[in-house]
């Protein structure tokens, strides 16, 4: 469908108006800040939303002023830009809305009446400010009915080694009753921040479903943990808005002092979470909060309850770099309770034959820890280097069925040797000390071989050209490329390459046009004559001959120009041919005059000076005629 011209003009005007309105809209940029709630307890978070209105591409607001009182986490952002064009009764109208929403989670760092400072958005160098908001942060209740704790085990935590973070609730016993206090209460809300996302780079070693499923109860007596909900397939699916899951951990008793200093046998509910830190450094857990109704007293007929909010402050876990400790020489990164075993294949062989020694290291199936273990140094084993050639001293290990395997290729140097015990140091996280573990010596049956000597063994390093042998090597080949010529820089010249067919096509077309023209010229005697006319005329005029030859040269020039027979061409005919070719009257008159002058000179005699002048005139005239006469 084609737009009619008036409609087209209207659309153009509308687009121009849109551009103008865009510029105008940016002048009215407005920043609006909102808080999800205006009151919360310390330890809780609130969603903070900043909306930038009337700006097509809004930069993120500057919230640096908030860092004094709040921990700010980004939740994401989305555009509100929309455009609609409508035509009602032939009248076009357009509605353009610009905006951008930025969402953050604010966690207050202190209690009190806080001010959320105004967000600042910088637009073209000008700061546009939103409004400051008030937020009341309530301190936790002073009470000893509910206690909340975050405990970390063990005391010293090493990078790569697992550790436990225990979320713990202690409830004061019911007055004059030994019943489990949870069994009387409506579910309270227990916020454990690391349930949804482990802090920073920590790796959760637990499966949330497996950990919490046994604690799930259907009677509604327990704790709702971090808003986990029930769904059909996944009990803890986060994205189905179904019934909140209620958990009741196994209770135990523990004596603690209450607020008055008396020993009280508290009910304890705890959930252990296991993590591994991939790197040393501090990691924060918490704060953890609990909110709900708890029994605080009793009258004659019933228990008295009140709303309590409890907070366990955040706990900093400092992960230590194990490698920074002085370690035995044979420590290669094994952590945990390590078992070491060795296998040789084959056990009967001849001197020089290959032997695969497999070292198997187990540490209780902690796959992440297994990855950290490097290959034990065989040369440290007594007599092994003396009796065997070690072909690859540092093989790359592989994790198979919860064990790390290192496969060494050896060749016995002499008959009657055996594989000695191989020792490995490992770090016991519980004892925080290095322990040693050894394999048993392996008896071999090594017989003499007349052909292979010890020196030959060392020459068996893999050759890069033997690609068929390389494919059979397991675990990778770490022979780096070292030749400087390998360091070829691959600059991206794709654009030039993709342009090359077009360039070649253009070149071909240009060449074919050129060749075609040359061929047409070659095939057309008239064009050939004309192309050579001036050169030939110059040659003949320049020959030191008399006036008659000069005259013939001029007539021959015209004959070549106009493709006429030179023999018998008369001056008048030549002049007519020149006229037909487009030569001007003045040039033709000069031509005839020059021919007459030459004829007179031929019959009347002419001096050498006259002839030279006539030659110069003839060349000049020939050049002029060549320019004026069309092909």
């Amino acid at each position: 469908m084609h737009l009619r011209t008036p409609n087209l003009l209207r659309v153009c005007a509308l687009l121009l108006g849109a551009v103008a309105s865009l510029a105008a809209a940016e002048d009215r940029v407005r920043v609006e800040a909102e808080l999800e709630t205006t009151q919360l307890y310390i330890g809780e978070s609130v969603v903070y939303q900043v909306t930038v209105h009337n700006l097509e591409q809004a930069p993120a607001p500057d919230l640096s002023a908030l860092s004094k009182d709040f921990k700010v986490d980004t939740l994401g952002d989305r555009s509100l830009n929309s455009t609609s064009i409508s035509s009602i009764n032939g009248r076009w109208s357009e509605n353009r809305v610009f905006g951008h929403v930025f969402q953050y989670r604010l966690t207050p760092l202190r209690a009190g009446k806080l001010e959320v400072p105004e967000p600042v958005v910088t637009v073209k160098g000008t700061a546009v400010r939103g409004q400051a908001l008030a937020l009341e942060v309530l301190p936790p209740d002073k009470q000893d009915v509910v206690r909340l704790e975050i405990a970390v085990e063990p005391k010293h935590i090493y990078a790569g080694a697992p550790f436990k973070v225990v979320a713990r609730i202690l409830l004061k016993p019911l007055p004059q009753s030994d019943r489990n206090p949870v069994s009387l209460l409506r579910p309270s809300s227990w916020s454990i921040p690391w349930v949804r996302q482990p802090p920073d780079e920590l790796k959760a070693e637990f499966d949330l479903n497996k950990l919490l499923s046994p604690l799930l109860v259907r009677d509604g007596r327990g704790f709702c943990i971090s808003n986990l909900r029930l769904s059909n397939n996944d009990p803890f699916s986060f994205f189905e808005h179904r019934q909140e899951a209620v958990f009741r951990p196994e209770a135990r008793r523990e004596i603690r002092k209450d607020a008055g200093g008396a020993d009280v046998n508290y009910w304890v509910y705890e959930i252990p979470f296991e993590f591994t830190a991939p790197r040393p450094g501090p990691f924060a857990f918490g704060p953890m909060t609990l909110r709900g109704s708890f029994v605080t007293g009793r009258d004659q007929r019933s228990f008295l309850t009140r709303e309590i909010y409890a907070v366990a402050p955040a706990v900093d876990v400092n992960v230590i770099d194990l490698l920074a400790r002085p370690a035995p020489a044979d420590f290669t990164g094994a952590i945990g309770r390590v078992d070491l075993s060795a296998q040789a294949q084959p056990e009967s062989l001849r001197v020089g034959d290959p032997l695969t020694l497999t070292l198997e290291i187990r540490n209780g199936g902690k796959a992440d820890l297994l990855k950290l273990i490097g290959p034990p140094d065989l040369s440290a084993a007594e007599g092994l280097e003396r009796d065997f050639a070690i072909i690859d001293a540092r093989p790359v290990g592989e994790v198979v069925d919860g064990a790390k395997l290192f496969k060494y290729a050896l060749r016995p140097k002499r008959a009657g040797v055996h594989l000695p015990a191989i020792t490995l140091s490992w770090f016991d996280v519980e004892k925080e000390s290095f322990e040693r573990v050894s394999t048993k010596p392996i008896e071999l049956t090594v017989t003499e071989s007349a052909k292979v000597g010890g020196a030959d063994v060392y020459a068996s390093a893999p050759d890069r050209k033997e690609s068929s042998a390389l494919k059979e090597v397991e675990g990778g080949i770490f022979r780096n490329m070292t030749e400087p010529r390998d360091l070829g820089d691959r600059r991206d010249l794709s654009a030039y390459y993709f342009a090359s067919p077009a360039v070649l096509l253009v070149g071909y077309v240009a060449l074919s046009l050129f060749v075609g023209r040359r061929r047409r010229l070659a095939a057309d005697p008239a064009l050939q004559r004309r192309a050579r006319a001036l050169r030939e005329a110059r040659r003949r005029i320049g020959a030191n001959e008399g006036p008659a030859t000069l005259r013939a040269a001029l007539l021959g020039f015209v004959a070549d120009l106009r493709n006429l027979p030179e023999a018998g061409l008369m001056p008048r005919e030549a002049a007519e041919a020149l006229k037909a070719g487009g030569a001007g009257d003045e040039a033709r008159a000069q031509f005839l005059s020059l021919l007459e002058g030459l004829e007179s000179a031929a019959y009347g005699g002419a001096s050498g000076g006259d002839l030279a002048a006539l030659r110069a005139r003839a060349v000049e005239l020939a050049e002029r005629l060549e320019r004026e006469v069309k092909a």
Partner: protein
Amino acid sequence: MTAFRTARVPVWPLRLALCLSLLIAGAGMAGARGNEAERLEAFRHGQELFAKAQKPEEFMQAATVFESILNGGCASGAVCFNLGNAYMRAGRPARALAAYRLAQRALPRDPFVDANLRAALGQLPDAPRLSREAWWTRILFWHEALSQDERLNLMAGGWLLLFGVAVWRMLSFPNPGRGRAVLGRAIPVLVLLGVLLTASAYLGYRDETLTEHGVVIRETTGRKGNGESYAPAFDKPLAEGSEFVVTERRGDWLAVRVGDSGEAWIPSRDVDEY
């Protein structure tokens, strides 16, 4: 009457074009030579560190040096391969996987690269992989066996051959005859070859230059949006070594397509892109 000779096609335009091409190429090489010495020095330094390394962190030092060469704009297959080796020895198979993938682009037929790539994949058995089989690889059967440079050179060579044959036909066989007919039949074949080679080069360009790939270097949760507040996109976290294609980028978050599993948003701090 003036005598005339048969016209000959002059060769000076071709000579001029050749001289200009050589001059431009020479100038480019002279400019590139400045950085070459620095790169070579860094390359040797990385080799030394690698050769002396015993512990993972020492291999990481070597990896840092190789990374610096790549960050300096040098896309060398050898550097990528050595970088992958350093990461493997440092116990970082996911990072090694990304480096080997890059190395394989430059050195697609190198058995060492292939062996080590398989070793890295073997250490990451649970990670989803990108499907690298496409229907057109059956037609462009040579595609996977060539580096992008080779594909581009082959494409240019194909078109140059076509150009040469067409020019030869034009200059040497101006009149109908057997030679002209034979070359005339060769031209459509060469055009088809040129189109196929161009398709291979473009698909390689699209896959290696226009498309961003990546590897998850530490287990992370794929989410339905670009923020921690969004629900998980998959029923379990993305394992270390999961390979993906980047489809969008917003701040520190990447929208990625993970094999046949679908799309998700993941934080860029948990991935290596290449």
